[in-house]
């Protein structure tokens, strides 16, 4: 016999606290007929277990909430639908255009991505005869693993209120390892496609990978040194990031800059759109992909960008810290986190409207030269800051 009441109390004790729900509940109870129905529904129970209550409780149970809602899959899915649309709208604005609109004029074409997704879904998937059939189809799906697993370690909370599915001392290391794994699948997909342009794209991807990966890791290392921990839950409260004066970007702007450039390189955004340059190698590794498989590959870059932007928010922008929104309780941290991540992503995608594309050798010299130097300097700077803070406090 399962101890249901014990289970429920465990869930209730570890749930996201949103006072707004109680306010709504009390307001509903005051309405004559509706109040009765609500009261009945909430009291309705089978085998001594209140059904609706426990469903709400389960949704608000922290491990579930963080993994599925904020900052997990629901946020990711919304971002994927909204971000390309926002990108097209904003870049369109920069270019004196309007961007997608006619599909839903009242909301300025906000469901454009849905149409694109369904169109890809209903399109033929072509596997050309030169391709290695199994790998050609497997790699885009395998790509999901390193992209989705980092969601387990993203902390959307603020100091003292972590909103993270799994707390571990090695969270940042695992995330970096998973992020570093992504290009392997791109190169594999390009190899399986067996096309000249995808070969060139794969070689470019590999070169770029080495160019940004080392500065990227050193930049994160600098922040780990600064905070003295790599647990995403403690990173937020490490140097008391709840005050914006203690944000990572203030304490170590060099690491932030390196991280941002590495992010642009890792997600193949302009000006480092080199492996997928459509004028040069026609989407490089993905040149032969059609239909929903291409749709996955197309959307995967945005997922990667979301993961990296989330890490950047945690390390440099204080995670979910911000002015507390009344009645929202712990949810307000999640909202601040999403807003910050979205702003970082918008800055990232809008680079497309401003910069042309670098050549591969120029990008490599930026990676191995300027960025590596900057990253090493950021590491030294972190040590200095730690020592200075240690002396002061």
């Amino acid at each position, binding site marked *: 016999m399962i101890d249901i009441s014990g289970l429920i109390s465990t869930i209730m004790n570890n749930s996201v606290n949103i006072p707004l729900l109680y306010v709504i509940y009390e307001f509903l109870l005051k309405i004559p007929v509706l109040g009765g129905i609500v009261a009945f529904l909430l009291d309705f129970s089978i085998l001594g277990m209140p059904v609706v209550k426990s469903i709400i409780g389960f949704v608000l149970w922290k491990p579930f909430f963080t993994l599925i809602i904020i900052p997990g899959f629901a946020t990711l899915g919304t971002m994927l639908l909204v971000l390309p649309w926002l990108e097209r709208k904003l870049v369109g604005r920069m*270019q004196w255009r309007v961007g997608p609109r006619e599909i839903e004029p009242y909301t300025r074409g906000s469901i454009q991505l849905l149409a694109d997704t369904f169109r890809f*879904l209903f399109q033929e998937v072509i596997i050309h005869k030169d391709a290695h059939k199994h790998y050609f189809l497997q790699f885009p799906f395998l790509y999901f693993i390193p992209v989705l697993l980092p969601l387990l370690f993203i902390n959307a909370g603020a100091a003292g209120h972590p909103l993270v599915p799994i707390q571990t001392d090695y969270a940042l290391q695992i995330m970096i390892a998973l992020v570093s794994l992504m290009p392997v699948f791109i190169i594999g997909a390009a190899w399986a496609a067996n096309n000249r342009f995808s070969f060139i794209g794969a070689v470019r991807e590999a070169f770029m990978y080495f160019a940004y990966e080392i500065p990227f890791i050193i930049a994160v290392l600098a922040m780990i040194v600064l905070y003295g921990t790599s647990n995403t839950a403690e990173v937020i409260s490490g140097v008391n990031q709840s005050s914006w004066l203690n944000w990572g970007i203030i304490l170590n702007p060099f690491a932030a800059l390196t991280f941002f450039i590495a992010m642009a390189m890792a997600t193949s955004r302009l000006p480092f759109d080199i492996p997928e340059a459509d004028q040069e190698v026609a989407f490089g590794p993905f040149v032969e992909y059609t239909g929903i498989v291409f749709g996955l590959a197309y959307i995967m870059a945005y997922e990667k960008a979301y993961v990296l932007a989330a890490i950047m928010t945690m390390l440099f922008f204080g995670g979910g810290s911000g002015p507390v929104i009344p009645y929202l309780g712990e949810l307000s941290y999640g909202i601040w986190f999403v807003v910050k991540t979205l702003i970082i992503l918008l800055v990232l995608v809008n680079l497309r409207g401003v910069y042309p594309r670098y*050549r591969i050798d120029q990008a490599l010299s930026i990676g191995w030269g300027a960025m590596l130097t900057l990253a090493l300097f950021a590491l030294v700077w972190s040590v200095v800051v730690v020592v200075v803070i240690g002396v002061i406090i």
Partner: protein
Amino acid sequence: MENPNEHIDFLESGPLAPLKKWSAKWSLWPCHFITSCCGVELAHAFACGYDGERLGTLNLGISRQSNFIIIEGTITRKMARALKFVYGQMPDPKFVNVIGACGERGGIFWNSYNITHPSDIVPVDFFIPGCPVTPESLLRGVRALQDKIMGVDKKTIEFKKVELPFEEKLEERMVPTSPKIYAPTPEIKVDVKRVVDWDFGKELEHTLRKELKGLFESITITGTNTIAIRTTPESLMEVARKLKGQMNFDHVKSVNVIEVPHERKYIVEYMASSYSVEELMPVLITIFTEIGIKNPKIQSLMSVWEGANYSERELHEFFGVWFEGNDWMGKKFLLAPDTPDLPLRKEFKIPEDRYVFEKDVEPEFMVPIEPPKDLYTPIWEEFIEEAYDSDEIVVPIGPHHPGSGHLRVTFRIKGDRIVDALPEPGFVHRSMEKLAENKLYIQNIPLFERLAINDPVNMNLAYVRTVENALGIEVPERAQYLRTILAELSRIEAFYYDAGIFSLFFGHTTGFMYCMAIREMIIEPLMHISGSRCGPSFIVPGGLRRDISDDVLGMIDNITFAIHKRAKKFESIFVTNPVTIARAKGVGVLAKEDAIRCGMVGPFLRASGVNYDVRKVAPYEAYDKLDWEVTTGDDGDCLGRFLGRLEEIRESVKIVKQGVDVVKGIKGPILSEDILGEYKEASSDIKGNFFRVFGNIVLPKGEWTTITEAARGTTLFTINSDGESNVPYRVRVMSPCWMNLKGFMEAVKGERYADFWAVYGSFGYFPPEADR
């Protein structure tokens, strides 16, 4: 193509049909199939101003990921293979729109030997007429396709019978179809002697006689700035060597072959000029010789003038003349494998050009229009073997590639460096030279305008000037200024198109959009003047079609200020962008000697440090009366070529402003009395008397050559007339892009793979202009 509607049927099947249809409707990603001039209007349709992305159509350019082809204009026999191939690569369900008149049944090129009909190759959903189409109608075509996908049956046009009030007068108002007169045994003479007031010419003739003693048969002055040297096939090479070595005629402007079938001979001629000596710059020396029609062989002058290389290859395909020493003889270069052989010979006849066919009369097509069977135009095997032996990778770019336009270049790449680049033009070869032989002189104006639809006025002017030169017409002063203004507007338009493509090749879409926005502003007055966005056909022999009112002139003046404002924004976002400078500086360097050797023209020659501009060297229209300067650079790299053209835009704006100020004070006719003859009342507006005045122009006997500075460089027109026919016997067009192709390929070699696009953009290579 069993079921032309199979893609629509697929969308309508199954329980998810509404979702399928809805998503396909709002997500038509065109894999734009730029095949001809309509590509310019497609760029406008998807740029700011019209913004095709409103409809959810994202211009992608990659076949595998798109579901919609927009075929832009002419499908030549070479391009038909690419079309078939690309259509096959696209995933189902897919749709096809064809824009432009020449995509339907050929349009202005309907009797060309090199075109096919897209509807024979792929199932077409919608035809959008227009030459070129306007962006509005292009987007309307997209809307129509969306309606078709949703199953809405909309009639796009409702036909109504209209009672004309002037029906009894209709007989008079019909366009008179001038009968074409072909002389049965035309007398073709290249060196018709003319008495001209040209002292330097007499001096030069004297020098030539001294230098070339014993090598020539005759030396004739055929007009101001042109001298013809008749020689024998054996001493042709020696004459060329002497001209280059001792007289400094360092490049060749044109190579031409004229077939005279009834005399059983070919006339082969080379036109040389000089970039190194200032007095010789305007002079065109024609060396020509005659060879028999049977087994026509002649020594190639490629070893003397390298710029002759591609033209010799082309003429070999057109006439079968074998240039000994050119390594490309016996291979196809411009034409497709299944194009009829030797198409420019007189015995190869194309259908007669007619505007209205009587009912029930099927036009006879002597030209094959069925689509080609095989899919590939192969890359030469030796080339591939040689490349793999030396550990290099062969990468073909184009003709359908997001960053190539309709040119195929096959690279041999070692590491990241381009070892060798083999160009393969001819994907837009619409055979203008052949078509022109079957049209009246006046009918050729819109034809040659389609050389470069983004630089229409200059192309128009170049042809009309040749006709005027032959007829000896002086253009009235007001018309001269107006022509200058229009030509400069066209130049600005062309340069901004090139700048837009340059920024697009760097992945900088914002710069592209800004450039297109500036172009829109220049198109606006052209529309006010002529009613057409891109093909005004406004300049006619003797002047202009109509007078331009002061309102429109004031508008042009205002627009020069507006351009300035937008150009500043373009400069701040793209030109001064550090990434642009890093990509373009020091890349694709073409040194001065190389530029001269390859026979470069226009701003690309000036960027390499040669101070040569036809507008200054041999001034025409009102250029010598206005204050402006020639822009030259020293670097000869991509950035230099790009910035040089931006500098020229400033000079052009200066010319336009001055011209507008001056022309407001000049009153007078806009058509020369020489050409009007008895129709003097038409001197301010040709409307109503057009065909009576221009229908039967006959050029005097001889060869007429004119050089004009179009946007991308010197355009040379040579018209051969027999003095009896009212159609030209032969027209030779040397368009700037064709002349620049050699230098373009030279500049690419040794650079990195990604630099090809920097070089491509910086040369402003426009394939329709090059392929003719």
